């Protein structure tokens, strides 16, 4: 009888090529390597310099997402530097034999939306990408984490990574979420509770009745932001919801392979008597819509609260951070969060750019108008999400409300493409980071759920759908 293990430990041990001795790390096999244009060019260059091939191009896939514009995609990219980066990816993929979904392709989109949607992300796999939001794929019970460009080159050359085992932390969310409270509110509350460094060195496993009740898309939203708590990865044990989502997707196993896979996937649960290195508890019944007020994702509060007063913060580092954040955000202590006006609403990103997110926001917007002076960008996470939304008529709801209906990409989540805030502009954004300048130099970001984004677009101030009735 083997010892009791957590989900993360099971997946880890199933991928150890070679155990390290002493201080030496384990060598871990990587089942899927996702590439995009930003963190790969220097890695391809490294391979070329060393005369090395990609060991497993058949476990590697690339898409264009960070730099791509979300309008006029049939035209060449206007910014020459962005264009060069995208063209470099195309040349590299052709030279090294990597499958690429370029701008305009039916399967193009944000790398973390594309993988699951193709059925490439499956339980128990190890998934890496030169992008911190690779944690998204943990929603399937995969061990998935972001890596730097040196590691991208390492995986290209060896299909492995030398790694020290991560510690494990259980995030128990019991109870049931109330209507209007979503996965985004859960993860923002988790980050506010444990802090942006609280997860450092850990794999977070989200558990409990509130997590089990979530759809795959909601689970992806939660795992996506594990990195904002400093964690290497987030995971959720696969269950029937997971299997139902994967079944029939292009790269899902079929026939006898499906049965063999599901039999294995059912073993991917933390053993009842396994121990985590740390545990956190949240009561889902008590959660309400959550928004950020500051410049890191841990600086968040329930929407019904007020902008905090730094004077009341005891920890000196946190107090100074809060003072700097409020100065940057242009906010006064004591202001009700609901009174904060925004210029822009962004619905999209690898956090909240999936079909359910668009459906939820469209439901709020149906028959309503985006407030005067507010622009709303709706950016599907992939071309497939876009096509599905159009088949369901969601784009008509957005357009009728006065929102912009865009092509797929990372868009306003980060200031690398034409979709940016101007200095001083304020957004309610369904993305994942409210860092200074993240959405454009001088831009001010409030992180919100798709429901809050849609309600905020209608009222022009941070709002939940309950405020619209």
């Amino acid at each position: 009888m083997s010892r009791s293990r957590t989900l993360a430990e099971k997946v880890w041990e199933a991928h150890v090529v070679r155990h390290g001795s002493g201080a030496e790390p384990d060598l871990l096999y990587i089942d899927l390597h996702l590439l995009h244009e930003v963190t790969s060019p220097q890695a391809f260059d490294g391979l070329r310099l060393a005369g090395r091939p990609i060991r497993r191009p058949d476990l590697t896939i690339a898409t264009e997402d960070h730099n791509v514009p979300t309008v006029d995609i049939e035209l060449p990219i206007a910014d020459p530097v962005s264009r060069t980066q995208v063209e470099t990816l195309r040349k590299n993929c052709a030279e090294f034999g990597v499958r690429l979904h370029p701008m305009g392709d039916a399967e193009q989109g944000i790398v973390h939306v594309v993988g699951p949607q193709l059925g490439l992300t499956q339980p128990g796999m190890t998934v890496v990408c030169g992008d911190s939001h690779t944690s998204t794929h943990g929603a399937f019970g995969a061990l998935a984490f972001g890596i730097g460009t040196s590691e991208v080159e390492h995986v290209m050359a060896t299909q492995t990574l030398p790694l020290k085992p991560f510690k494990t932390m259980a995030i128990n969310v019991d109870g049931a979420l109330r209507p209007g409270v979503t996965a985004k509110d859960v993860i923002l509350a988790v980050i506010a509770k444990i802090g942006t460094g609280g997860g450092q060195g850990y794999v977070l496993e989200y558990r409990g009745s509130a997590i089990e009740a979530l759809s795959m898309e909601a689970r992806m939203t939660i795992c996506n932001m594990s990195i904002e708590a400093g964690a290497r990865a987030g995971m959720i044990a696969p269950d029937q919801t997971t299997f139902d989502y994967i079944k029939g997707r292009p790269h899902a196993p079929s026939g006898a392979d499906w049965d063999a896979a599901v039999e294995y996937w059912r073993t991917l649960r933390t053993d009842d008597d396994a121990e985590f290195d740390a545990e956190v508890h949240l009561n889902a019944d008590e959660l309400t819509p959550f928004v950020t007020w500051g410049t890191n994702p841990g600086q968040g509060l329930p929407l019904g609260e007020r902008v905090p007063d730094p004077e009341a913060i005891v920890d000196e580092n946190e107090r100074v951070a809060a003072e700097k954040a409020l100065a940057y955000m242009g906010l006064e202590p004591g202001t009700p969060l609901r009174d904060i006006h925004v210029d822009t609403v962004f619905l999209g990103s690898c956090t909240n750019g999936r079909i359910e997110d668009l459906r939820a926001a469209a439901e709020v917007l149906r028959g309503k108008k985006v407030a005067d002076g507010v622009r709303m960008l709706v950016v599907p996470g992939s071309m497939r999400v876009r096509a599905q939304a159009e088949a369901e008529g969601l784009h008509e709801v957005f357009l009728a409300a006065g929102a912009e209906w865009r092509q797929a990409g990372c868009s306003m989540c980060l200031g690398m493409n034409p979709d940016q805030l101007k200095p001083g502009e304020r957004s309610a954004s369904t993305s994942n980071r409210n860092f200074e300048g993240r959405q454009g130099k001088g831009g001010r970001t409030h992180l919100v759920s798709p429901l809050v984004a849609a309600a905020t677009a209608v009222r022009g101030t941070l709002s939940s759908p309950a405020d619209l009735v």
Partner: protein
Amino acid sequence: MEAFTTHTGVGVPLRRSNVDTDQIIPAVYLKRVTRSGFEDGLFAAWRGDEHFVLNQEPFRAGSVLVAGPDFGTGSSREHAVWALMDYGFRVVISSRFADIFRGNAGKQGLVAAQCEQSDVELLWKLLENEPGTEVTVDLTNNTVAAKDFTAPFTIDEYTRWRLLEGLDDIALTLRHAEDITEFERRRPGWLPTTEPVPAR
């Protein structure tokens, strides 16, 4: 990678916590496909402020950055390490580093030295009271020293060994190529590949 044993250079006090990688180098500087010249993007937004520490003599020529807790959070961009190194930094001292940043630093030969927050505070005071003070970071003994101040720092033992030896990670792994091939033989056949599949 160049081996690292000890380094002495001007210490730069950066009194900020949660210095995320978007602050270290904004996304707009990430569009290059080359591996050098990222120093112009380092702390780009803050360097527009004349009071920012790197705009002050003698900190401008600093090579040991002393920062607040949770340094390098957020995006996985290795460009953050490249920007620090291209500018001239060889060491970052903090009481807590984000995991991916720490990993990236170790791959490139930037020493991420973890000190107690109380020692960081003492270093800050020392560097602010006597701008231009040089800090010595000794990787053979895991110590940080400046004037009569000395403190220990921690760094992952394996990373330390690789830095001291100046060893390339990929070459080390390729010594185990047979183990990788053997592992690949055992992988279940139903695991997906990325090769295009016909529509079902």
